[in-house]
């Protein structure tokens, strides 16, 4: 028997049993789609998070305190003007953005709430958050906006009973400010910075908070590869200024990545977990459809035996057919899975406000199709073999 006969016959069988074939394709496709879409979304998630973090790669955040694993951040003091000037002079430092923030009481239409106020140079602020800020209304604060402020989404819409609108007045520590800009809800990474915060210029922040202490510095560097080295220089310099060993914590993004390395590990583990669940679910689906569709053909296998087919002939015919069905089902599943993943990612991206693409790598696509073929063929051959092992008359009489 020549291979071509097997292919022609398999094609005929698939074509003649349209409904059955369609159901089998679908059974396999759904299994593969589950694998593809879950992995694509998982990869997309990982990509999105990495991408957000990489945009901070040339940044060192400097804090007057210690990050103690398991306990969080303990503030030990504040930076001075001199610290900032000194850091600016360290070689490799491109730019320093001093930030001050504090929780203060804010009043709006007679209602008082504690809100985080951040003071910063508007130019720095704009440069810093440019990628993350989307305005609902209004504009960036400017250096001249001594009595102007920009507010995050939560401040505008969640903290107070009444929504705060553009040009409304709010009272911060007894001084009145005009809202010149209201931000949209921020993406996941920037959300904790932007959403709950009122932004002021450094000058008005100093006045309204009654202090010129700097709570934090964001340092941009020229060469990402030197991040660790520069971070050490910064710590050394400021510790020296304050005459206190371990006063400063300067964290480059790479060390930050290490800090959140566990998060990545968890994501990886979850991903592998999801993939294996998808694999199991998919394979059971494929096995089920294939077992059913071959088992119903026991009678036909009996006829084939009765007219002289050897067990090997029969196995070969079913191998080709199961392979063909699994291949088509696998390809359909890839397409279906990609569509589903795209849909999920589009919705998730919109919901989280960040760019989360559905990533279907060739390895995953080809791997899934191979899995479909392997599982399909094995679970198709099993009942075919069982039928072929029966005596011809037993198989012919099989209901």
């Amino acid at each position, binding site marked *: *028997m020549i291979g*071509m*006969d097997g292919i022609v016959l398999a094609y*005929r*069988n698939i074509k*003649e*049993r349209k409904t059955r074939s369609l159901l089998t394709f679908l059974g396999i496709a759904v299994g593969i789609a589950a694998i593809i879409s879950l992995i694509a979304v998982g990869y997309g998630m990982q990509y999105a998070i990495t991408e957000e973090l990489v945009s901070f790669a040339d940044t060192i955040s400097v804090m007057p305190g210690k990050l103690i694993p398991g306990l969080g951040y303990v503030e030990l003091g504040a930076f001075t003007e001199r610290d900032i000037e000194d850091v600016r002079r360290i070689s490799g430092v491109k730019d320093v953005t001093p930030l001050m923030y504090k929780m203060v009481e804010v009043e709006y239409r007679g209602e008082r709430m504690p809100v985080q106020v951040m003071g910063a140079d508007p130019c720095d602020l704009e440069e810093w958050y440019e990628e993350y800020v989307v305005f609902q209304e209004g504009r960036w604060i400017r250096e001249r906006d001594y009595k102007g402020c920009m507010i995050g989404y939560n401040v505008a819409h969640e903290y107070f009973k009444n929504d705060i609108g553009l040009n409304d007045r709010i009272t911060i520590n007894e001084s009145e400010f005009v809202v010149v800009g209201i931000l949209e809800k921020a993406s996941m990474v920037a959300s904790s910075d932007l959403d709950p915060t009122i932004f002021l210029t450094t000058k008005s922040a100093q006045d309204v908070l009654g202090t010129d202490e700097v709570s934090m510095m964001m340092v941009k560097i020229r060469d990402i590869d030197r991040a660790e080295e520069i971070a050490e220089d910064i710590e050394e310099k400021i510790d020296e200024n304050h005459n206190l060993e371990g006063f400063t914590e300067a964290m480059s993004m790479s060390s930050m990545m290490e800090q959140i390395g566990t998060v990545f590990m968890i994501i990886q583990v979850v991903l592998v977990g999801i993939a294996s669940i998808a694999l199991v679910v998919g394979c059971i689906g494929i096995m089920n459809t294939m077992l059913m569709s071959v088992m119903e053909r026991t*009678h*036909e296998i009996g*006829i*084939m*035996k*009765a*007219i*002289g*087919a*050897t*067990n*090997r*002939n029969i196995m070969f015919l079913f191998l080709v057919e199961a392979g063909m069905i699994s291949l088509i089902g696998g390809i359909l599943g890839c397409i279906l899975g990609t569509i589903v993943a795209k849909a999920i990612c589009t919705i998730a991206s919109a919901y989280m406000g960040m760019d989360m693409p559905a990533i279907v790598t060739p390895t995953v696509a080809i791997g899934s199709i191979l899995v479909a073929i392997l599982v399909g063929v094995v679970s198709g051959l099993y009942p075919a073999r069982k039928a072929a092992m029966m*005596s*011809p*008359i*037993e198989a*012919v009489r099989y209901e």
Partner: protein
Amino acid sequence: MSTMIRTVELTKTYRMGEIEVPVLRSVNLEINKGDFVAIQGPSGSGKSTLLNMIGCLDHPTSGTVFIDGTDTSTLNDDGQAKIRREKIGFIFQQFNLIHTLSALENVAFPMMFTGVAREKRIERAKELLGTLGLLERARHKPSELSGGEQQRVAIARALANNPPVILGDEPTGNLDTKSGKVMMDFLEKLNDKGETLIIVTHDPEIAARAHRIITMRDGILRDEK
């Protein structure tokens, strides 16, 4: 005259849980080349069982079947498949055509297993359908054919590999009298040309055409014509 089929102490026992049901009890039978044998007997007497053993469609519990001199009990699965495709053409009461294939493809199908080239298979299948007056129905599916037509397709399929023996298990059982007669005329002509025919039947008219009648009763061959 040489022997085509010979059974020696052929026994078949079905096991129904605890109970053993003997269906064939030491059947010794010899059928010559070119003979036309009718097997008769009451329902349940073991006629189909015997025919299935002769056709290598089932394994005996004990005893042997010789086909054209070959002891089939010594053959493995592949050997028995070879006997089935080269020596035997089996016609079932239920036709047992493959319903996804056309009449032509059904007839050509057994030749795939004997390694006949595709064009040759189709040529021979057409020729066979032609002799059975079914050329116009070649492209039809079994479901689009009448019972008589389906059985003629089944005969064509049984003849595809030119087997020396045709076995029919009540081949006219599902046909009207006229179709049954047409079919028997055809088989009789084959027999005239030297084909060995073994037909299980309840129909005395068909039995009357045979050269030899075997009657089965409770798994034992009783009397012969």
